[in-house]
């Protein structure tokens, strides 16, 4: 994208130049263009050329160049035609006059004409039929000029006699046969036409450079404003994406189209926030309201259990009921906990966490569980530096990962917990030899209550990974679910703290 946009201008510039060069009688001259091209194609500005203002300006500039060239071309062509016609009339008139004169009077009439022609526009000459000079101020007869009495534009230059090797100049010329058999040549310099063309051309160059350079600079400056605002939007969107739905895009009091866009997005965000709040509120209040009666139910069952003798057949049933209610309560507690963490308010527990020590504690906590299931649980630590985080929450997140791994790894399998330092933090991997998580379920497992088909036979709420996900988001870390070497799940927790100096919460 970068390379593409930086080459954009020179390319257009070239095209404009080519168009000019294609026109008739237009010298291929790029001098006027080079400074423009070098000003704007400087590296580092390339990004700004992507803005719509700049693009419009370049298109407009190119059109301007094309139309100016066409206009000037027409002007040039019309002027030369007119001047040519005048020149031809003068030549023909003079030739007619001279041809009526007596042969003897001719040199004198020519000299008289010459004397009157102060700017030296006209040259005359009389030559023998073989082309030998007889009289006049023309050095030699033009080679390709037919003696037909009509005016022709000479392709090669002619030379004035008397000037030592004087400059050749372009001319329109007329030749006719005198009754004596001699050749009379009249020529008129096209200097004026050329000079006028030059003036027009220079005018065009000045006009283009004076319009294009400030135009492009202005365009660049103009495009910077909107780009800066887009960057502001970008910065404002970051916290929103991280979950602070109460943030809004900045709106200036200019009330331009960007502000219009920003306020549309802001309205959308407000609606989104309201809906999210509503959903979360409903979820939370269900969980919250059901907790109290469930706790009472559990208490009553517990009392009933204490009043029932262990030998009574109903004792087992009561115990079953208590277990169910306890599981239900745990599920609600987990749900409320996720919701609490998603509020992103908990920051007081943050401190520097020694991940290596924590890994060992987690191993210590879960090794017996793995062993009971006949699963090998190994840790592999290359100590990273301490990380800012909430030890208890991180412990909970990693515990959940390990607990999941143990749950899904069949007897005889193995689990590896790996910790490595990495750029800006630490990288933690939990690899198991279980069935793995299918590609299409990897996103879904992080959602609340999602349980894969393989998990349906196992106890659990489907909230474990959602809790992990919430904790990871709170820390600004990243969770990746992939595949281990032997087909099991590989969950990678990339612990690279984002800038915590700014609180995410409101």
């Amino acid at each position, binding site marked *: 994208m970068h390379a593409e946009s930086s080459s954009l201008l020179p390319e257009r510039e070239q095209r404009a130049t080519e168009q000019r060069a294609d026109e008739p009688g237009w010298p291929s001259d790029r001098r006027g263009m080079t400074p423009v091209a070098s000003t704007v194609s400087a590296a580092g500005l390339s990004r700004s050329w992507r803005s719509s203002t700049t693009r419009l300006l370049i298109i407009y500039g190119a059109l301007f160049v094309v139309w100016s060239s066409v206009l000037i071309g027409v002007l040039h062509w019309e002027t030369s035609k007119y001047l040519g016609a005048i020149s031809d009339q003068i030549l023909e008139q003079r030739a007619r006059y001279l041809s009526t004169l007596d042969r003897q009077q001719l040199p004198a009439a020519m000299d008289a004409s010459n004397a009157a022609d102060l700017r030296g526009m006209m040259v005359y000459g009389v030559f023998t039929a073989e082309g030998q000079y007889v009289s006049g101020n023309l050095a030699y007869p033009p080679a390709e000029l037919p003696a037909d009495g009509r005016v022709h534009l000479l392709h090669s230059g002619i030379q004035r006699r008397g000037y030592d090797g004087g400059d050749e100049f372009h001319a329109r010329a007329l030749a006719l046969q005198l009754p004596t058999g001699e050749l009379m040549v009249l020529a008129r310099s096209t200097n004026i036409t050329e000079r006028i063309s030059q003036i027009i051309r220079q005018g065009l160059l000045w006009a283009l450079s004076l319009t294009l350079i400030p135009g492009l600079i202005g365009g660049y400056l103009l495009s910077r404003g909107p780009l800066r605002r887009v960057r502001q939007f970008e910065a404002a969107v970051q916290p929103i994406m991280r979950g602070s739905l109460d943030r809004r895009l900045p709106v200036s009091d200019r009330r331009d189209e960007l502000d219009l866009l920003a306020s549309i997005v802001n309205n959308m965000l407000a609606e989104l926030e309201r809906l999210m709040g509503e959903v979360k509120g409903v979820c939370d209040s269900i969980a919250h309201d059901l*907790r*109290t009666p*469930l*706790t*009472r139910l*559990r*208490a009553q*069952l*517990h009392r009933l*259990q204490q009043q029932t003798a*262990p030998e009574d057949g109903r*004792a087992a049933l009561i*115990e079953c009921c*208590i*277990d169910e209610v*306890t599981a239900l309560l*745990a599920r609600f*507690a*987990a749900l*409320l*906990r996720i919701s*609490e963490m998603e509020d992103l*308010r*908990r920051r*007081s*527990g943050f401190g520097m966490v020694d991940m290596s020590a924590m890994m060992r*504690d987690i191993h*210590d*906590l*879960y090794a*017996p*569980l793995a062993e*009971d299931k006949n699963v090998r649980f190994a840790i592999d630590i290359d100590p990273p530096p301490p990380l800012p985080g909430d030890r*208890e929450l991180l*412990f*909970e997140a990693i*515990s959940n990962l390990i*607990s999941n791994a143990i749950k899904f790894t069949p007897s005889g399998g193995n689990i590896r917990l790996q910790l490595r330092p990495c750029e800006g933090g630490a990288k933690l991997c939990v690899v198991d030899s279980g069935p793995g998580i299918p590609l299409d379920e990897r996103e879904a497992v992080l959602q609340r209550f999602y349980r894969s088909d393989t998990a349906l036979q196992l106890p659990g709420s489907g909230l474990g990974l959602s809790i992990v996900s919430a904790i990871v988001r709170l820390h600004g870390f990243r969770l990746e679910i992939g595949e281990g070497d032997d087909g099991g799940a590989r969950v990678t927790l990339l612990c690279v703290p984002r800038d915590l100096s700014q609180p995410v919460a409101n």
Partner: protein
Amino acid sequence: MPKVLTIEDDAVTAREIIAELGSHGIEVEWVDNGRDGIIKAVGAPYDAITLDRILPGLDGLAIVTTMRQVGVETPVLMISALSDVDERVRGLRAGGDDYMTKPFAPDEMAARIEVLMRRRRTAGPVTELRVDDLELNLITRTARRGGLELELLPTEFRLLEFMMRNSGQVLTRMMIFETIWGLHFDPGTNLIDVHIGRLRKKIDRPGLPPLIRTVRGSGYMLADAR
């Protein structure tokens, strides 16, 4: 008869506490506002106090802070409807000894109150713990049952120490997890059971009368086999 002060503005919760602690042989005195609460807490000796975090009149945090400032060391179990994790930290920092969120399981609450009262009675340096023929030397960090040395891992030692210090009391899984690992999330029932199972295997070897008992629906208890 041990005596507990309950400072709680919600009548339903208060009745629950009275009933549950009553069934454990604990007498409960109930006040429903912070002002009366602080007067009673500072004025009369209690074995423990259950304290609601949010009260009319005087806030629970303020009560416990004041109590500690005037040198009243009665153990306080803070009970709060605020489930926010930060609240626990705040409550414990203010001087609370333990923290529970509403709604709570009454048996868990009773177990916690008993542990608090017990901790107070046995305050002071202890070098050796003894339950039945099980001995735990806290200085040499060795454990013996019937004179035979037990090989315990550090975590197992801490777990056994906690259970022996509170012998004869029901310890819920949550209490064990909070005390031994210092964590407050729900680890799932299985995890603590496995750890207790390992300890049990080392202590209650086949043929010996079992010291660690499972209390149905609640947790575990280490007590004399007799």
